[in-house]
């Protein structure tokens, strides 16, 4: 029983002591690197850059530049060649349709005249 108690105590004590060792190691050896890096990174290196760039630009933006007169609607930047072609095609279609109509009208006229002539002859 004693042995068990003693060995458990020894185990606990050693574990506690050993556990404190990495804690010291964390506290002393590696800590300067991350803390320095952390302090340097936001403090010295990056901060001048973001503060300079947006502030300069943001203050300049309304003063100069920007569009003085905003256009209305969408720009019409495409004069289509096919549109002129389609126009001429439309003209062709319209012309041929008119020709067909004229021909049909003429045929009807001729037939009617012939019929009329036929009835008068008879």
């Amino acid at each position, binding site marked *: 029983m*004693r*042995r068990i108690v*003693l*060995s458990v105590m*020894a*185990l606990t*004590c*050693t*574990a506690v002591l*050993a*556990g404190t*060792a*990495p804690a010291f*190691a*964390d506290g002393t050896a*590696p800590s300067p*690197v*991350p803390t320095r*890096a*952390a302090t340097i*990174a*936001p403090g010295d*290196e*990056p901060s*001048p*850059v*973001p503060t*300079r*760039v*947006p502030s*300069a*630009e*943001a203050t*300049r*933006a*309304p003063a*100069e*530049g*920007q*569009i*003085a*007169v*905003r*256009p*209305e*609607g*969408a*720009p*019409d*930047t*495409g*004069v*289509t*060649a*096919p*549109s*002129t072609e*389609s126009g001429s095609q439309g003209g062709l279609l319209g012309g041929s349709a008119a020709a067909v109509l004229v021909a049909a009208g003429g045929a009807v006229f001729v037939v009617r005249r012939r019929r009329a002539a036929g009835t008068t002859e008879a």
Partner: protein
Amino acid sequence: MTPLSRRGFAAAALATLLAGCGGPPDRPAATAAQESTKDGATASTGTGAAPRPLARSVPVRLLIPAIDVDTPLLRLGLAADRSVQVPPVTAHDQAGWYRHSPTPGQVGPSVILGHVTVGSYGDGVFRHLARLRRGETVVTRLENGARAEFAVTRVRTVAKAEFPADEVYGDVDRPELRLITCGGPHTGDGYRDNVIVYAALSDTAR
């Protein structure tokens, strides 16, 4: 050594070993933190490397090597219906800079327009504008001899009926460029869409 001390020694050795195993994971965490700060530093350096805006000077030439564009720039204003003027339809088509917009390199959206086709004359100066891809270079030469180089950030094809005026003409906090032409299928009246290239200043030379 008595059996008691042997067991105690063994237990102590085991405990030390186990406790020692708990140490190492903290270090990678520290390096991870350093890496993230490094990333932050490089990111901020990246924004810090952004070129300073240029003084106002009218653009006289536009070059887009990726789509073989090399054109003098006209000055365009507003049409009678308050829409933006477009370059005249000629055999030797040229692009034009909207003179109420910032000059290229100034803070704000500088607007340049060109035809995609010029009727019976064939292709316009911006015939292949929609082929531009992100990161490709657009160069403008200014009247005072300066040069403003832009990198394409975005290419959009939008219906004219839904032209994003705020996005195109709205204020921005850095020098940007808008290249505009027509695109999409053409109906009886013309093209249905607009092709808009957004670019940001990437380099300057005076």
